């Protein structure tokens, strides 16, 4: 599995420099977690890697390169904070939306290819909501919706997965379940997970970075010990969580005094 390197990356919205000269390597087949307070630029960084930062007032520097020399485009799956399910499409259609978006046919085919449909049923089975295949998203709970989003991500079957606080909107217990599930289903993929929850980062990440300051900078990687998903009774983990929480609080307070309030979303 190839590494992904971000070299001398910089991005500004107009005069608002979010980060500059940022270097980060995502190790192939591993999970990298990125922590940071609100408004520090986590989403922006993720969008830059995904190639979603184009706009008149957005200036970018630096480059994203893959270890195998091929472009990253077309090899990522994207999972954002809101589940982005299409409200008019049932679960099955939401999970297979990628296939239909890439199809060249002018009109909606009445039936999905059996191959695609079987694959979709398999991933729905894996995330445990195969019985909801015909439901509309509005009839699902927050946790179930995230499971559909996860199924959609799996369906894309890409080597790289970029996730932006995917479990931020669900309750603590559901969040732990979803973490375990994602960890199990996305092993061997290169994952960049953004979160503001230190515990999440420490449970799932092979490397944990903290983005802070303005312009934002990355701290050195923390490499938590043991296999992922790490269990909660791991003492070392709890200690690290305490440290990280302290650090997050301090950096937020520092920013609070330096940065204009309106800058923080």
């Amino acid at each position, binding site marked *: 599995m190839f590494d992904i390197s971000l070299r001398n990356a910089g991005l500004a919205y107009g005069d608002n420099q979010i980060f500059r000269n940022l270097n980060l390597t995502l190790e192939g087949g591993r999970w990298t977690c990125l922590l940071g307070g609100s408004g520090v630029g986590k989403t922006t960084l993720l*969008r830059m890697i*995904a*190639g*979603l930062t184009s706009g008149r007032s957005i200036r970018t520097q630096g480059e994203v390169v893959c270890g195998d020399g091929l472009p990253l485009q*077309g090899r*990522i*799956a*994207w999972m*954002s904070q*809101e589940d*982005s399910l*299409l*409200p*008019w499409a049932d679960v099955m259609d939401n999970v297979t*939306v*990628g296939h*239909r*978006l*890439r*199809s*060249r046919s*002018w009109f*909606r085919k009445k039936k999905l290819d059996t191959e695609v449909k079987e694959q979709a049923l398999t991933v729905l089975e894996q995330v445990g909501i195969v019985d909801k295949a015909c439901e*509309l998203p*509005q009839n699902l709970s927050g946790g179930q919706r995230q499971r559909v989003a996860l199924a959609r991500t799996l369906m*894309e079957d890409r080597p790289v997965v970029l996730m932006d606080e995917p479990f931020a909107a669900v309750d603590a217990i559901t969040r732990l379940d979803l973490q375990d599930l994602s960890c199990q289903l996305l092993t061997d993929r290169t994952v960049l997970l953004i979160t503001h929850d230190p515990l999440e980062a420490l449970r799932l990440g092979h490397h944990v970075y903290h983005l802070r300051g303005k312009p934002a900078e990355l701290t050195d990687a923390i490499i938590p010990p043991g296999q992922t998903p790490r269990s909660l009774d791991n003492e070392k983990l709890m200690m690290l969580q305490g440290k990280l929480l302290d650090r997050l609080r301090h950096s937020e307070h520092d920013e609070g005094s330096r940065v204009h309030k309106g800058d923080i979303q």
Partner: protein
Amino acid sequence: MKDSLKPLLVFVGLLLFWQGVVAIFDVPSYIVPDPMSVFDRMVRDAPLLWEYTLVTLAEMVMGLVLGVVFGVLMALVLVYFTGLRPWLLPLLLITQAIPVFALAPVLMLWFGYGMASKVIMTVLIIFFPVATCCYDGLRHTHQGWLDLAHTMGAKPWAMLRMIRWPGALPALASGLRVAVVVAPIGAVVGEWVGSSAGLGYLMLQANARLWVDLMFAALTVLAFCSVGLYYLTDYLLRRLIPWQSKTAH
């Protein structure tokens, strides 16, 4: 109370109010007739009213259909041919800045006294709310869906058909609701300026002969048509776009 009963209650209330005003202020019947005599007239002239209602309804519905088609096409052009936008927007505004009332006589001249000129009047009125609402809806597709589609490598046509178009439907629906309400204006004004059939024509004739009860009868029927058309559209839109009321986007 059931929501479907409320419009009916409003109708009954209006009738009572009308009757009350006529009774209390002793308004002479050549100024405002009382509801009963209007109803009488309606029954007596039912065949005529029916015939003219069909004419006006046909004008309204045809105008609506064409106006929606043109409005949606305009919105698509505005969204996808960005180069044309600066040229088309002023044109769109000009069609609204000129009052249709001023245009009506010219339209009669060009398209004759038949239905065509009324349909065109209606199209002119409806076109704008439909085009702007649809354009707005297409422009403000939920960013999350666009990001997702981009990373999935969506084809532009598939993107329109599967994401942007359905995403714009709730906005288009509000344009349609406005369009349905203003559609009668186009048809009736057209009939006033020159026609030989329709509820507007009937009103004009009745007015000229001081048949105030017939004039009110035609007005009542027109009101019923408009309200009926609105509720029908609203019902259809709710059925066809069931997600609009439940999602925040």
